[in-house]
């Protein structure tokens, strides 16, 4: 679930729904349903004009209740099996998704040099 949430972070809602439709994971169908419901809610009650003018600002999953069960192995051995549940949270924001400028090596070098230049002697005259 986390991998799906990570995949759609920062995508436009149309792109996210397209990717989830052709993903084979069980969580993909669930997240797609959630996104469609959120889109509908946005248009109906949150004063959003165009339903495709949304993008995924935040998307994450959290641990839910775990039910413990016994998984029987051979030779009288047993393991404790967890029946896993999780929560999924998504926040849609109206507008175009913000593009993050990729930090080049040159930018990193510039920052490093600036850090060196900022060094000073504290408590001096």
């Amino acid at each position, binding site marked *: 679930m986390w*991998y799906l949430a990570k*995949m759609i972070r920062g995508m436009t809602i149309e792109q996210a729904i397209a990717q989830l439709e052709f993903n084979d994971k069980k969580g993909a169908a669930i997240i797609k349903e959630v996104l469609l419901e959120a889109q509908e809610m946005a248009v109906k009650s949150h004063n959003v004009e165009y339903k495709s003018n949304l993008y995924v600002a935040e998307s994450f999953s959290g641990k839910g209740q775990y039910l413990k069960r016994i998984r029987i192995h051979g030779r009288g*051995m047993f393991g404790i099996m967890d029946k896993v549940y999780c929560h999924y949270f998504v926040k849609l924001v109206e507008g175009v998704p913000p593009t993050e400028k990729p930090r080049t090596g040159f930018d990193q070098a510039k920052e490093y040099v600036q850090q060196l230049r900022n060094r000073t002697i504290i408590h001096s005259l």
Partner: protein
Amino acid sequence: MSVTGLLGFFRRSFFHLESRILQAIGFNSRAVVPALSVQGPGIFPQPHRNEETEEHSFLDNMFWMAAPKKRRTIEVNRCRRRNPHKLIEIKTNIEPCPECGNLKQKHVLCGFCYEKVRRETAIIRGQIQAQEGKPLNNPAVETVVLYEGEKPAATDAGKRIVERKRQRPSWFTQY
């Protein structure tokens, strides 16, 4: 919770089972405990020493297994789990279907159009089944599907005709 009681029962039953298995093999627990509490003459321990070395090699064979030395920290676990090769790749081969407008993959048939055709053919198959009556009763001729207001053409002379009470769908061409 009954889970802890069950766990205790299973633990005890496993240890009992293990001791029974070891007894059956011949590895008796009384031989593990060093019996040489009293210093005996040098000649005696010979057969005893052979037994002990056999038991040691038996122990080596059974209990020398690989095990992790330290707990993997969450930072190390995160590095492994979030490595780019483990993340899901974005698909670039998704496009809209020119017929219905739903999304489809480039090398795969559109799911919506396929479902539409599947439903129509299921109805036609039902009608053919009703016409035939029992299984494996199909005539040795071709089949033609005719919709509302269509007459069998000259080329459809000896063929089996299946009638459908609706307008011909646009995707089912007649020729």
